[in-house]
């Protein structure tokens, strides 16, 4: 069977993975990705607003990442910004989730057939949203990601990082993943695994 080239992009659909790593001073873990990271505009607003980023670390990280982080514009985010510019104070609760739904709809309708979304999340509600039902989607929460990076010896201090994250939470962050699988279009890494057998 011929190999098909696939494009992998990391999608961060909720603020938590970024804020969690910011709290333990390890936003540099995102530097390990060679694939682009997609964040919708409304989630960018959430992660950079003063209440969540009082010391400006996330803002500085976004600046440093440059075009490795792609901010996906949505009508939800644009509408919110327009209201803010008009001097209104719109409620932003749930708008991140609605903006991600809009982005996921765009991907579902117009995305490339070779696109593989790796969704890095923490909020379990993400599992109920449209982004979690995209074709070939691979879901991974922060704990499972760190554990996999440690297993692959990409980072040396996986258990310490998970301990540091859990020290700031009321309940431990349990690893959660849902690997992407499809019978019709094999992803590059799955094809590679088959070849090795």
């Amino acid at each position, binding site marked *: 069977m011929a190999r098909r080239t696939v494009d992998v992009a990391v999608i961060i659909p909720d603020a938590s993975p970024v804020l969690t790593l910011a709290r333990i001073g390890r936003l540099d873990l995102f530097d390990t990705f060679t694939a682009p990271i997609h964040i919708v505009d409304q989630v960018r607003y959430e992660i950079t607003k003063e209440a969540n980023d009082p010391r400006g670390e996330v803002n500085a990280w976004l600046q440093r990442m440059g075009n490795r982080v792609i901010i996906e514009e949505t009508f939800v985010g644009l509408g919110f910004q327009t209201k803010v510019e008009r001097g209104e104070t719109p409620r932003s609760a749930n708008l991140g989730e609605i903006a991600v739904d809009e982005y996921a709809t765009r991907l579902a309708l117009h995305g490339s057939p070779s696109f593989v979304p790796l969704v890095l999340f923490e909020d379990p509600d993400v599992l109920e949203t449209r982004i979690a039902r995209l074709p070939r989607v691979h879901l991974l929460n922060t704990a499972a990601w760190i*554990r996999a990076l440690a297993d692959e010896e990409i980072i040396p201090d996986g258990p310490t990082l998970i301990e540091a994250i*859990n020290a700031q939470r009321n309940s431990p962050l349990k*690893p959660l993943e849902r690997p992407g699988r499809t019978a019709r279009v094999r992803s*590059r890494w799955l094809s590679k695994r088959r070849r090795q057998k």
Partner: protein
Amino acid sequence: MTLAEMLDKLERGRIGHGEAMRWLGVDSYNELVEIVHYNGRQMPGHRPMSVAPETRSLLRQITRPVSRAPKP
């Protein structure tokens, strides 16, 4: 001894399962394991549950080791 101290001792193998179960007031090993895991700890000698081979394989494709930037 607090719960955290007891779990720490158990994880390091300084106390046995029996003592931990008595301390917690549980009579099933499964319940002990569940409490230990729920508190983000491992049973002594156990390895954390590994992530799926597909996830590891995918991350191998799209990640690289990087050195940490020195703190300013």
